[in-house]
């Protein structure tokens, strides 16, 4: 698989503070990669370095095999975290303008803009000025503007933030469409559900470092399996203790984080063998969030912003 984007021991400091600290990863052609992490983890800075907007303090970044810069213009579709459009442009003008900046000819740009707006439910507002659109509509228009030139590689920074659940679902559809064929998508998010549903691979950033880089299924394996069992029998807790890392009891119900080698099947067999009456037995599928808590700790996820430089800091030496 050809690598479109590579980070090789890349660091970035702002005013002496490390926003990104010695990270290495690559994004191959045809992948959908989730770039995850809490606010302030270094995602936006990394994306800016990947696009050549910000130059790394150390290490090497390549995009399409070269230093990021004008050579990649037209091959990249980028949706930044900060949302915005020219308010006096119409929706179709907004889409066509960015497409034209990416090398599409005028007539084709407007034809594509009309087709995309129609396809994603914005045909009725194509001729309306951006200032009259709802926030969700404007956000979709901006995403369409970012990808109207059919880029090889789409980089979307927090594309789901600020959208209602219905529009989030539409956006998931757009991301899936974007990744057809050998097209590549890298998107950052701090909402794990989107990554779980969309990504082949996830890169978890924490404290400016890569805390995890691998397939989604591998990440989920690192999360503790959970089990909820309810029983009026007082022996319930003692029976579960050998299988659990932690236990908490609320009335008749016990929540257990299971040890790595413990299985729900083995626990059920033990309870039955001991004659413990069960009123509820509910194994819980681990989530990516639980996997990340297991990897980096809840405190890191919770206090991240206080420990690293701001994610959109003073630009020091942009390329």
């Amino acid at each position, binding site marked *: 698989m050809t690598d479109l984007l590579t980070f090789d021991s890349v660091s970035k400091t702002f005013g002496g503070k490390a926003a990104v600290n010695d990270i290495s990863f690559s994004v191959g052609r045809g992948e959908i990669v989730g770039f995850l992490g809490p606010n302030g983890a270094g995602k936006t800075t990394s994306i800016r370095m990947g696009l050549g*907007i910000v130059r790394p303090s150390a290490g090497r970044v390549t995009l399409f095999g070269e230093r990021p810069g004008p050579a990649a213009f037209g091959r990249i579709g980028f949706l930044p975290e900060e949302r915005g459009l020219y308010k006096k442009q119409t929706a179709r003008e907004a889409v066509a303008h960015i497409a034209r900046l990416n090398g599409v000819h005028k007539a084709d740009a407007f034809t594509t803009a009309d087709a995309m707006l129609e396809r994603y439910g914005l045909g009725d507002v194509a001729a309306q000025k951006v200032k009259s659109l709802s926030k969700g509509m404007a956000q979709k228009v901006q995403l369409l503007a970012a990808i109207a030139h059919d880029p090889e590689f789409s980089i979307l920074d927090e594309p789901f933030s600020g959208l209602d659940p219905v529009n989030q679902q539409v956006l998931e559809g757009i991301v899936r469409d974007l990744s057809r064929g050998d097209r590549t998508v890298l998107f950052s998010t701090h909402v794990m559900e989107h990554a779980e549903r969309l990504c082949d691979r996830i890169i978890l950033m924490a404290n400016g470092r890569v805390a995890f880089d691998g397939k989604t299924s591998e990440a989920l394996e690192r999360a503790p399996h959970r089990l909820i069992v309810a029983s009026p029998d007082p022996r319930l807790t003692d029976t579960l203790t050998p299988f659990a890392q932690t236990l908490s009891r609320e009335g008749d119900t016990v929540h257990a984080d299971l040890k790595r080698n413990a299985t729900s099947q083995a626990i059920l067999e033990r309870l039955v063998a001991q004659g413990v009456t069960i009123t509820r037995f509910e194994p819980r599928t681990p989530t990516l969030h639980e996997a990340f808590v297991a990897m980096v700790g809840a405190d890191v996820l919770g206090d991240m912003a206080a420990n690293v430089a701001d994610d959109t800091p003073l630009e020091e030496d942009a390329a």
Partner: protein
Amino acid sequence: MKHLSLRRIWLIAQRDYFGYVKTVGFWLSFLMPIVFGGIGILAISAGLDFQNTRYETILDTTGQDVGEDMVARYTRRLVEMRQTITDELPDAMQAAVGDQLDSELDNNLVLVPPPADTIDGLQPYLKGERTVNYEGEDITLDGALHIYSDNGEARARYWSSNVNADLLPSIARRYFRDRARANYLESGGLTLDGYDAATDDLSGIDTFDPTKPVTDTESGQAVSLTDRIPYWVATAAAAFLWFTVFAGAYMLLTSMLEEKLGKLMEMMLASTQFVEIMFGKLLGVALLTLTSLAPYIILVGFGAAAAISMGDPEVIAGIRQAITPKMLVFFPVFLILGYVFYGAFFIALGSLSESMQDAQTLTIPILLVLTACVLVVPAGLADPNAPLVVFASWFPFSAPFAAIIRIPADASWAMLTGSALLLFVSTIGVTWVATQIFKHGVLSGAGLKPLGAWFRRVVLRQKTVS
């Protein structure tokens, strides 16, 4: 500046240009001079007078016809004044302007016969309680000049409910002053007309230029209108340049602010270089500025064409003398360089702003510099080779204005080229610095504090304690 794309620069320029041109406000300001100019021309053609006509009267109780003499002298002076003004104009314009002057002079003040014999009898008319019938119309009396005798000496008092009215009193003041001078001169056997004739001959002093070629007639070296027109044209060119920079600068500032508030910049950076965005904005706003100035340029063009078509050889020769190869080469050069030089500053400052208040605060210093630099234009008109003007023509901030004003004073090609080169180098430097500030402003917060930190870290290479 690798892979600088003219297409992307043009697209950004187009967006900025049409972003403004499509607004109603732009067309209102664009059409305003045309509309007002048209209204003015129509009003003149239709003989409309927007000045308020004052109906006043002179009540002369001296029995010596002092009021009549005063009016006669005033009328004679108006005729002389009209003659003086029209004599200065080309032949084709004399009749039209003369008629217009007559109309305005006649309509400003209309003297009606007094409707009463005493000042007490005039009071109801002056208070508006009664009207005067004048040429079939009932009019209100706006004022009355009462000329009376005080121990045989004529004196005057003016009555009006408009305390600021001064036309008739000023006519009276001048008349009584002249009368006093005449009486004084007569006591020595002299006349006022004789005195005026004697002093008038000395009031005109002709100016001669020793650098002009000597001709058969003595007037060959005399400074004429033809000699002065090139300086006026250079002054107008410098003023136009300054106005273009000033108007463009504000548009750049607001355009940049729109970009910041629109938050689209970072998205554009995936397909456009910083410097392309900057040059695109400079180009777009330059076109916009020229478009918004188009009505004035057209009016000036018409004015010049009219002056030429009127056939005054002095004016035609003066305009020809003003449009020299140096002016044709260096006016566009200094216009472009001056605009880019200042425009880059305003883009950079706009990128640091988050609101119009920020922008106004940040741009005060550069606006002060810009305003100070335009002061060199009148100084250059008075003496194009004064040390201050010579220095200003090399100093990049004032060079665009000062160098232009020096062209009619036969500034050398070497001096003009050197000044333009220095400005060009300075413009490249300013553009580079502006690009760095622009990048910083786009990717980070507003204001000078983070800029100061950036300057200390990147330029001064100071270590930051983390």
